[in-house]
């Protein structure tokens, strides 16, 4: 009996001894480092953004209902340990090119699947895998696409804003006057001029000539344009950049942009691209013509991108190479197809992501008043198929203005996309609305009004006792000649919902605001007011993180009684 048990024990031990001996004498391959994977993380999971922020996991691409992320095995396990759900898309290979594409029709999807490995993301969006960017040229021209960003951004940086905003001063005579300067004839002429290049397909010499034409146009307005050169495959491409520098806060920058390249099924020879996107380009040129004649508080930058049709390459290169940390990009208005209307009144779709909500709201108000054209507010983070998307990737508020997408232009990416198919009533209204949006956000300086206070600065001081603390915001600015006083505005959200905090005019050029509320972050701006009660534009906006704890204002009944007797 004992001997049997002994044998059984040996039988069990034998495989282990064998395995151990083999592992000693066999040259086993080294352990491979854990691979990276692309995963799809659904939004609206409890504490998702906080966990991702804490774990320092970056988002490659935000979609409407999910995030695309690149995780190693360790990060994946950590997310799972927090109870977060995600779907594995594919193992990430740095040698491949990843692109997002929108296939709205079954036939498009079939075509995509016949040529690429396509992974479903959400809605009509797919992740495509290619060996090189040029392979994406095989996609049918009517399919919107963009390259998946190679690097991510932290979600903690995203600002989540309310859906309702309060704005001041939308009706304005100066704006009416500026809007009146928009000329339908100019717009038509510019579209014709751009169309006359035959094709503006980015790899062609014609597109370079179109870029030169835009450059010369900016020069003729007295601006100092520049090129941003880059290569798509072996083809030279050029973004054209010009700006009107702000007089009060030049580091505050508002961007209006469009892509000037085009495509069609005969793209090497004929791609007139009147609506897509000579319309946006001409609207930017017209805005430059009008705005350049007026002084502004903030800088306006006009950018006309190339190689958008190749997957937003021009705008990607711009945000990679040209964004300066010394600048604060207030917002980006991207005009992409703003001249086709199947019937009037046509909507102008204003598409933003969550953190661009304030800009969408503001633009909708302005285009509705000064177009006038109904601005349809759309928050859709999945709409990443135009030049606003690379700005979204950097957490910059950006809006794509596009004609009503529910009724697509039947000439889209065709050789028939010509000037005679455009509706110039709608187009002019869209251009007027865009111009006034730009004038409003960059703050055109009103003649006769007090100057905008310069050098608006703040510092924070904190006083504390055992149970309470007080954050005092010390605000100061340069005195404005002729000002009778100043108004100070505060908001719990950036760019909107400002409320005046002084009951009467502030006489000094400084103010101390004691923060007793519960909000964590406050935004401030100051204006000057003259003796005729005319108010200047807002200064630049400054933020302060107060990080206050709620006040305890409950008095105990017992304490109240005792206090009464004591007193």
């Amino acid at each position: 009996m004992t001997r049997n048990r002994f044998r059984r024990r040996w039988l069990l031990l034998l495989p282990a001894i064998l395995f151990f001996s083999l592992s000693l004498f066999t040259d086993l391959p080294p352990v491979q480092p854990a691979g990276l994977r692309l995963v799809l993380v659904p939004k609206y999971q409890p504490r998702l953004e906080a966990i991702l922020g804490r774990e320092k996991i970056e988002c490659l691409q935000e979609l409407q209902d999910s995030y695309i992320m690149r995780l190693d095995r360790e990060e994946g396990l950590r997310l799972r340990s927090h109870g977060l759900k995600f779907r594995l898309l594919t193992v990430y290979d740095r040698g491949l090119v990843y692109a997002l594409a929108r296939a709205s029709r079954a036939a498009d999807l079939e075509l995509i699947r016949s040529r690429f490995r396509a992974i479903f993301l959400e809605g009509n969006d797919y992740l495509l895998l290619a060996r090189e960017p040029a392979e994406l040229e095989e996609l049918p021209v009517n399919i919107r696409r963009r390259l998946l960003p190679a690097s991510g951004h932290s979600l903690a940086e995203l600002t989540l804003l309310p859906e309702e905003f309060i704005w001041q001063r939308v009706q304005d005579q100066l704006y009416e006057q500026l809007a009146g300067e928009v000329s339908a004839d100019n717009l038509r002429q510019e579209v014709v001029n751009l169309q006359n290049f035959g094709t503006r397909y980015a790899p062609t010499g014609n597109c370079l000539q179109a870029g030169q034409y835009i450059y010369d146009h900016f020069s003729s307005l007295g601006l100092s344009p520049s090129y941003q050169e880059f290569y798509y495959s072996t083809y030279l491409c050029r973004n054209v950049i010009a700006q009107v520098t702000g007089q009060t806060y030049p580091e505050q920058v508002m961007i209006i942009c469009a892509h000037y390249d085009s495509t069609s099924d005969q793209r090497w020879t004929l791609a007139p691209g009147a609506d897509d996107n000579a319309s946006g380009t001409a609207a930017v040129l017209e805005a430059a013509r009008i705005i350049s004649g007026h002084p502004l508080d903030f800088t306006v930058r006009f950018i006309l991108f190339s190689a958008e049709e190749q997957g937003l390459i021009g705008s990607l290169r711009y945000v990679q190479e040209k964004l300066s940390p010394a600048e604060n990009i207030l917002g980006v208005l991207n005009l992409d197809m703003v001249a086709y209307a199947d019937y009037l009144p046509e909507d102008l779709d204003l598409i933003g992501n969550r953190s661009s909500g304030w800009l969408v709201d503001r633009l909708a108000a302005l285009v509705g008043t000064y177009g006038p054209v109904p601005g349809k507010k759309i928050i859709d983070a999945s709409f990443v198929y135009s030049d606003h998307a690379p700005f979204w990737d950097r957490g910059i508020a950006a809006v794509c203005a596009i004609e009503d997408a529910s009724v697509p232009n039947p000439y889209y990416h065709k050789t028939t996309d010509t000037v005679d198919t455009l509706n110039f009533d709608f187009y002019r209204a869209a251009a007027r609305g865009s111009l006034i949006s730009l004038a409003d956000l960059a703050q055109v300086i009103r003649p006769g009004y007090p100057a905008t206070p310069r050098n608006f600065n703040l510092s924070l001081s904190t006083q504390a006792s055992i149970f309470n603390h007080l954050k005092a915001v010390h605000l100061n600015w340069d005195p404005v000649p002729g000002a009778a006083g100043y108004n100070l505005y505060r908001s719990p959200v950036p760019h909107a919902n400002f409320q005046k905090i002084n009951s009467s005019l502030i006489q000094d050029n400084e103010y101390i605001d004691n923060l007793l509320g519960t909000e964590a972050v406050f935004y401030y701006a100051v204006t000057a007011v003259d003796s005729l009660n005319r108010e200047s534009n807002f200064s630049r906006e400054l933020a302060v993180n107060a990080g206050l704890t709620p006040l305890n204002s409950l008095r105990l009944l017992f304490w109240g009684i005792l206090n009464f007797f004591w007193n």
Partner: protein
Amino acid sequence: MDGRIRKMGLAITALVMGLWWLCGPVSSAEAVEVRTFFTVGLFNFRQPEFRELYGGLPAFGVVVDLFTRSNLGLATGIDYYQARGEALTLEGEPAVYPVKFHRWTFPLLLKYRLVSGGFQLAAGAGLALSLYDETWSGVELSYHGRKIHFRAEMATDVRLLSRLYLRAALTWDSIPTGVSSLLLGGGRVNLAGLGLQAGIGTRI
């Protein structure tokens, strides 16, 4: 919350049982000695930040001690602490904000004494209810809280006349409020500290 209520329930039960145990053997007035004192003194926070803010807190008290022949007893009374100071500047430009702090404490302690002629040494521990209040001047900032907490005490009485006594007492309070404070870098506030009080009293 359940835990807190349970703890309070346990404390009250223990108190009632203690009272019953004490009062049980008392069958006549001679079995009980009652002493009453009026005291003044200083309370010092254990937390250096609080000391920097308020310094020592002047304290005023009324104490009633009740002892049986077995030298076991109960002590109760009212203590009042108050101080004024200026809020501390943690960052940025200094600014002056006067602040006031008050605390009322109602202790109930179980004590034991040693008596030798006109000298008595007593020590005890128990629970106290404290109500505290901090108010800023110039801005609408205030805080009011309450806590049942632990208190320990050691007191010495010296007889001056037949019914007149002099007392010196040392008390230790631990008052974990559960509230976080920026002054402590977000740490929880404990109003713990040591009080030294002296007073005069009489035997009833």
